[in-house]
């Protein structure tokens, strides 16, 4: 059973080489980014997320909406366990799998096969399990003889096929995504879609950050709207997406 429980969780970065005084004057009226302020010691801080309180349970497919710099990626990283809250509490129960940066750790001088093992190790997959899956991964990626060539000989598309194939063998209880993964040419796309869909279906909690209304409507049953690091609105998909996309189009028309 997976469970995510946030209570007044805050992520605040102290900026150690910023000149405090000049930035304080620019505090107001910023369209993007988190909140810039100063803490009680007078240091410049960026409050990426502030007082987040919510609970996610099995079956939740949550969409994250918000402007650039609202805190969506930071929240995803908090959910994966990279950032512990600087204030408040965040309880995460269940194995987390992240599809956020699937090329992380790739060594361009190593072969495709070696990189598969490296990516697998980084994702926490045991060596025995990797040995079981390696043939399936190679077959799915359709890279043929290139699997034993160094990665610098690959095209971007081939690179993406490889990392996609490795990352989608995970079956985590909590799945985190920053935009939907769309990989490959016409021939590959359909198999990739099916593979990703089966991964999403097997997961208990899905958190997906996106700017696409259609994607959120199709995939999510709950939406959290973040603005400057705070939750502006949280509820069922229809209500929040109407509000968010309604506001955005109003802002565009008014300008």
């Amino acid at each position, binding site marked *: 059973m997976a469970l995510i429980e946030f209570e007044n969780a805050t992520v605040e970065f102290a900026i150690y080489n910023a000149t405090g005084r000049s930035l304080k004057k620019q505090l107001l009226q910023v369209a993007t980014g988190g909140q810039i302020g100063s803490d009680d010691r007078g240091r410049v801080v960026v409050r990426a997320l502030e007082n987040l309180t919510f609970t996610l349970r099995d079956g939740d497919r949550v969409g994250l909406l918000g402007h650039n710099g609202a805190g969506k990626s930071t929240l995803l990283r908090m959910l*994966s366990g*990279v950032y512990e809250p600087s204030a408040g509490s965040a309880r995460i129960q269940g194995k987390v799998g992240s599809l956020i940066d699937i090329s992380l750790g790739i060594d361009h*001088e190593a072969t495709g096969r070696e990189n598969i093992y490296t990516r697998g*190790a980084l994702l926490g997959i045991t060596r025995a399990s990797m040995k079981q899956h390696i043939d399936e991964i190679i077959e799915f990626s359709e890279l043929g003889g290139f699997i034993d060539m160094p990665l610098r000989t690959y095209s971007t598309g081939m690179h993406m096929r490889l990392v996609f194939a490795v990352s989608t063998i995970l079956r985590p209880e909590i799945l985190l995504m920053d935009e939907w993964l769309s990989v490959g040419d016409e021939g590959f796309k359909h198999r990739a879609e099916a593979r990703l869909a089966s991964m999403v279906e097997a997961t208990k909690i899905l958190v997906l950050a996106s700017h696409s209304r259609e994607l959120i409507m199709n995939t999510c049953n709950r939406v959290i709207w973040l603005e400057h690091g705070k939750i502006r609105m949280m509820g069922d998909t229809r209500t929040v997406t109407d509000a968010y996309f309604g506001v955005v189009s109003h802002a565009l028309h008014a300008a």
Partner: protein
Amino acid sequence: MLKYSTVAAMSDIAAATRRMPLVGILGWQDVRQRYRRSALGPLWLTVSMGVMIATIGIVFGSLFHSPMTEFLPSLASGIILWGFISTVINEGCVSFIASDAIIRQLPIPLFVHVLRMTWRNVIILGHNLVILPIVFIAVGKAVHPIIFVSVVGFALLVVNLLWIALILGVACARFRDLPQMVGSVLQVVFYLTPIMWLPKSLPANVSAYLLDLNPAYHLLEIVRAPLLGHAPSAMNWAASGLLSAVGWAVALLFYGRFRPRIAYWL
């Protein structure tokens, strides 16, 4: 609150030891990157160290009028081991900084990065140790069975280096000028430790300070002495053991307090 964070630190370290396959893969990757597509391959690590030892050995050996059969093996093992010790400490300073991309994306136990750095240097040490048999044969030095005690000494040395690298890694992630200071301190320690000179060349009253109070000397001796054919003294063992106990206690408290902040500092 204090107990809780120390427990979290210990579970991070325990979790890291369970990710040894990852440590292994990343460590080997680091080493292979250094000599891929090079003419000599892994051999260049050994050759460059060998040339340095030969040069220093001949020049300084003649300068100090030290007998070659005694000086050269001592110098060779000292330089090889010191190369390992100083590189682990220097690279330990930047072990979190260098892995900042991974730390800010994947929730891997942070101690893995310290282990990876250490493992990569152990591999390189292995490449350099090959020089020792060559030196021994060249000067006609015999090998004694006590040489196997150096394995135990090496394990204790690594235990010590790990806590040093951990504390420095955390501190340097916050204060970016610290790595340079550490580098300078290590340079000084190198000259204060009997590597380029033999302990017996020291006048008696000075040796108490430069040897007994020098932790680097003790850590070096528990590995080097058996290689050279004699047992490390009780004081060498006691000092190294005490250093690891106190060091780890401090490191656990320090790491417990600051571990959640590391991702924020990077």
